[in-house]
């Protein structure tokens, strides 16, 4: 029993990273990706994973170099107090968008597929309140709970992918690069933003980890990040194998996949399972994002950590998720065109900038030290 309830262990952090990356993406990402890149979707995804690994390396480098300080803390050290405010605000705005997009997506899913007559604000409100309650319980409760839910979500998703084996046609994976390399690059752009590039936001959670002797934070995070990437590439391949060129037209690909399952009389109507996986994924991701917004806010403005802000934040998110997207098409454009750009340029750019400054400072420090000793 530890008296400090605001820390988590390395395994829990790795679990949170999985929840964060897989989250809602496991259901959402195959569709826009195959729409953009066709059969090359999984290649763009693998390359995007490479981009994510670079980002993760930067994040881990910064974490280690600054002795586990948070992004806001080392930003103050690197670019000064005043410059940190706009940077932090930019971060928070990005986070607001991400949290609301995740929250809105679940409402869209339900109103378009399962419960067509229920207004979407009901799903937005309930989902966000649930996230607020969870985020308020602190990171340790979140880590414990999500570890459990992650397995549940993966189990359900894998179950559907395994039961769908009879409808797979591996020949559908070919031809590759049918329309040249451009569609593949478009896919790379989308998936490098959502979900792989979002690792730059997850960096805010690294300071909560308490390492035991002999543990390596890099190893665990690389492993869990790679595992998450695998869990996203596999469903993409599955949908391509199942639907071929049509994969890009079916929204919520895994959901469509589950509808197709019909093995004897026993395994049919598996849609509900994907519904559960989707709720779990979105809920976990929205909660993590809300928690990160909250952390950014209190660190940026040096506020007291008493969870009072959590409810105003969540109410803001509810209103934003209800008003931000005019239509599903609008959602598609914002999430799969504007958001990846923001993540890659703003988020990735900032992290790269910080890494560069830290690296240069560190080199100078080393040179100075060498100068002293010689």
């Amino acid at each position, binding site marked *: *029993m530890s008296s400090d309830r605001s820390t988590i262990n390395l*395994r*829990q952090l790795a679990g949170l990273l999985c929840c964060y990356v897989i989250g809602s993406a496991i259901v959402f990402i195959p569709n826009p990706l195959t729409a953009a890149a066709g059969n090359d979707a999984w290649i763009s995804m693998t390359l995007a994973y490479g981009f994510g690994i670079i980002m993760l390396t930067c994040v881990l480098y910064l974490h280690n170099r600054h002795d586990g300080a948070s992004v806001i803390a080392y930003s103050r050290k690197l670019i000064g107090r005043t410059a940190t405010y706009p940077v932090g605000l930019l971060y928070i705005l990005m986070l607001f968008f991400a949290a609301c997009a995740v929250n809105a997506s679940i409402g869209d899913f*339900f109103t378009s597929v*399962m*419960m067509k007559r*229920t207004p979407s604000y*009901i*799903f937005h409100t*309930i989902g966000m309140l*649930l996230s607020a*309650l*969870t985020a308020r*319980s602190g990171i340790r*409760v979140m880590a*414990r*709970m999500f*570890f*459990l*839910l992650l397995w549940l979500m993966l189990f359900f998703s894998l179950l559907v992918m395994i039961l769908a084996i009879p409808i797979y046609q591996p020949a559908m994976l070919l031809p590759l690069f049918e329309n040249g390399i451009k569609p593949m690059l478009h896919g790379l752009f989308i998936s490098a933003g959502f979900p792989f590039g979002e690792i730059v936001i997850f960096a805010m959670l690294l300071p909560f980890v308490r390492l035991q002797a002999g543990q390596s934070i890099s190893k665990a995070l690389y492993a869990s990040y790679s595992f998450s990437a695998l869990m996203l590439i596999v469903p993409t391949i599955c949908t391509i194998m199942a639907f071929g060129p049509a994969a890009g037209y079916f929204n919520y690909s895994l959901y469509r996949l589950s509808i197709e399952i019909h093995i004897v*009389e026993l395994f*049919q*109507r598996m*849609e*509900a399972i994907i*519904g*559960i996986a989707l*709720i779990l994924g979105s*809920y976990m991701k929205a909660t993590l994002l809300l928690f990160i917004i909250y952390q950014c806010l209190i660190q940026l403005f040096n506020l007291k950590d008493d969870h009072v802000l959590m409810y105003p934040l969540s109410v803001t998110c509810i209103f934003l998720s209800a008003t931000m997207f005019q239509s599903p098409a609008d959602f598609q454009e914002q999430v799969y065109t504007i958001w990846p750009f923001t993540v890659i340029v703003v988020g990735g750019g900032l992290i790269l900038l910080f890494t560069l400054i830290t690296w240069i400072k560190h080199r100078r420090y080393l040179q100075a030290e060498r100068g002293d000793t010689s």
Partner: protein
Amino acid sequence: MTTDSRKTNALHDDITFNREKLEGVFSRCGDVHFQQWNYGDGFAFQAVSVYCSSLADYSSHLLQRALEKIPGYESEDWNSMTPEKLRRCLQVNNASLQPFSLLESFENVYESVMHGFIVILFDQVNQALGFPTESAARRQITEPVNEPAVHGPREGTTEDLSLNLTLLRSRIRNPAFKFEFLQSGAVTKSAICFGYLDEVVNPDVLAEFRRRVESITDYEVLETSYIDDWIQESTLSPFPQVRYTERTDTAAAAVLDGKIIVLVENSPMIMICPAFLVDFMGTAEDYYVRSIFSSFIRMLRLLAFIIALTLPSLYIALSTFHPELIPTVLLLAIVDSREGIPFPAFFEALVMEASFELLREAGIRLPRTVGSAVSIVGALVIGQAAIMAKIASPIMVIVVALTGIASFAIPHYDLAISLRLLRFPYMIAASLLGGYGLMVVFLLTLLHLTSLHSLGEPYLTSIAPFKPRDWRDLFVRVPLKVFLRSPRNRKLLRLGGRRPHP
């Protein structure tokens, strides 16, 4: 207490004064008797014995035999005894006067009488003799009614604290097994005893327990559950945060596991804390039957847990919101059976569940002889007649019955109660938002369970925080050959002074 007040409280030399004061305190206590007798040369000196006839066994000849011993030390007999000699006897033989105890103050006398002692006061002696003869009638050791087992020991605890401790101590004969006593209440002064295995119990948990339990000693504790209510973290949680048992083997196993057990005088319930959710899934018998069978039973209980919590709500959600998820043939059967029923599924379920709860409560409170009438009426009313009258569909009756059976299959009554309570919010959520509502309530329940603590330990220990090592004794029970070699038992081996085999 000042010295003065202690002086006035001390026994006096004058036996008439002492007797009058005692008679004043014990006035209108019809079961307290005073008996006067004389001793010494020509019966010149007085003595008075006081006892409570409902607690003390006055017919015993032990008293007489023991009294003979007192003058025996000085080779005197009662005929030649004087108060002077008696006083010297008592002073010299103070230590060897067992089982007598020497009482010096009125307080001691009241307490001794109320604990079934026979107290003897002598003329011109400012001390009294207390002789323990407690013989209150007690229930015999029987098989625990609420936790029967096919295999394994059959003895259950009784209301007698010392007997319970005997049963426990005879299971763990090790000095590391500690019993600590507390006295609670100003009037009842009932004893609270908590036991634990030193070095195995988590010291933080023990310290936390001590801190919490010590604050109850000012109040009257009549039953073990008072302590439960006092020390628990979340009073409004539907989930039980301590476990109860009447089986000494369960209690002993819990002690070996590093738990704290609490017993209270006049209550047969042994409280085990801290308790985690997974603890409520097991029984003592799981370890006495073959591991494959007990694993099967554990799985069955998990299924019972899920059914008892969600089946009615799942039915509501599927039949009102997601009929497309039900296989067509089954859906037709359901639609067919619901034809002509005026209520929505939620209302139907609510009526049936409520009448089931009523029946259950009535069955518990009624005298046994009338009890069977309730089940007949219940079977007819909520079974046959409700279907005939088109108030409920047969499928609904099956759902409710299955839920009831599932909640009976959960080995711990406390957990079954919490599921009974939670079923209603689940049903409401399912009727409002279908599967999504169900999911939301499930997540809320999980959130509550994850934030809940029992004596500072997470309530979902071994599930969240996830401890793969504990899973060998969670939903399956691995063979004892593997289980007993676990790290926990290595710790016990070290405690017993033996080196664990590799």
